[in-house]
């Protein structure tokens, strides 16, 4: 009973937190080749490993398209990946996480899917809901680290 109540409370708390923006975005007033380095260190400082960087622009250019800097960074935590692929093999398409880094002239726009979009698919799974909450929180922290890095960069 107590467990049930806790789970119910948890659900209420997490749905009150749920926000409508399915995409989390950040614009940095820094060129993309520099911004991506700040992003990589912010991810690592928050305990994430960077699995790899995909150069989407390179691929498109080799097919004759003109495009600006467009990269995706894949990142995650090994232990989490292993735990989730075992408990929820149907979730593996979203592991590792992926954030895009796109240049808009002298500025850079980062986009990542808000992990809370998955809440509705695992309404009774407290482990998954906790992961979504943690990831959301980490992304907000990483964005605020990047804002601080941006301010420091401008002062240099």
């Amino acid at each position, binding site marked *: 009973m107590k467990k049930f109540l806790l789970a119910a409370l948890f659900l209420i708390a997490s749905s009150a937190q749920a*926000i*409508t*923006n*399915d*995409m989390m*975005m*950040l*614009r940095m*007033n820094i060129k993309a080749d520099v911004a991506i380095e700040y992003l990589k260190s912010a991810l690592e400082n928050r305990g994430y*490993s*960077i*699995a*790899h960087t*995909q150069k*989407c622009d390179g*691929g*498109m250019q080799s*097919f004759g*398209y*003109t*495009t*600006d*800097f*467009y990269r*995706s960074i*894949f990142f*995650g*935590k*090994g232990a989490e*990946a*292993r735990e989730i*692929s*075992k408990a929820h*093999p*149907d*979730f*593996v*398409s*979203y*592991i*590792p996480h*992926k*954030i*895009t880094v*796109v*240049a*808009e*002239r002298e*500025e850079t*726009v980062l*986009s*990542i*899917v*808000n992990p809370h*979009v*998955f809440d509705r*698919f695992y309404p009774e799974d407290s482990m998954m809901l906790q992961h979504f909450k943690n990831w959301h929180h980490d992304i907000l922290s990483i964005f605020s680290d990047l804002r601080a890095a941006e301010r420091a960069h401008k002062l240099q």
Partner: protein
Amino acid sequence: MLRPLVSLIALSLFFISSSAFADARGEMLFGQHCVACHQFGGKGGIGLPLTPEKMENVDDLYLIRTIQLGRPGRVMPAFTELNLDDVRSIVDYMRSASNTKSVVFEASHLSGNPDRGEGLYHLHCVTCHAEDGSGAGEGTGVTLSRHRGFMVMPPSITNPGFLASASDPILEFAIKHGREGSGMLGFKDVGLLDEQGVADIVAYIRQMGSDQQVAPPLPEDERPTITIESPYDFDTTVSNVRQSLVGANFRIFPDRYLEQGLLDEFMVNKRQVGIRFCNFNELYGMLAIEPRVGVVLPCRITILEQEDGSVLLVAPNLKVVSRWFNNDNLVRLWAAMNEGLSSIMEEASL
């Protein structure tokens, strides 16, 4: 004599500092929620430019409602988690940053005839705003990183969020005086339309708006991935998937293990592999519609051998994923792509 002066100064200092405080909050919220798409100074990005000239053409109510309702199916989210005070402080900040005031419109006296409006719309507006008012061309705003068919991508003027935010006088004002720097003329200013013609078009836009279809909600039982069990062993399944992809004209990237780069190399489970693929032609078209598609692409079919030896194929369900962008053009495109992806997976596990 002196005392009232002192209190006047004190009073105005209070107002200056409290408005400076409100401004700081508005600026913070604008930075957090709007700048990614609209840029500082309103130069625009995925979102439309919000220049001082534009701010002179709209009232605060339009801005408040636009923030609250967003543009359903047209990229801009509805900021339902912001309360009215927050929304007002964003609008106040937009006003002070652009040095403009809310516009007071005269009530319009003309009633328009949508049938006459239809003819005028097709004559003057259809090339940019499209047959149903949803906006011609691909993409939104002034995204800088790629080629654009228009100086500014024409917005949807039949979007339910837009029509619920814009009063008739706002629509009339936009049509009469156009939008500076966007290619849209002031149709009354240049003598192409008179007052009645403008009112007729407004009536026709409202009529089209009431016929607009937004994407229906997803069925409850839709899952975030397509997951299929393969009747073959791991290695056979991997090679089948590869074959089906090549047959469907995809370019395949080097495989990656699911845990690769996340765990030490010798610990990585080699019975969990992602086959990544892309069709650059399609990718380029998708980027024009939605510059953020990179958060999901390139596509990947992950093949997992489970502890009991069974083998699964897992891929993102694009019908679900497309919803996260609030972009109905992408929803339509990916519904078709999702069929293709499912049949590749089925073929590989036949």
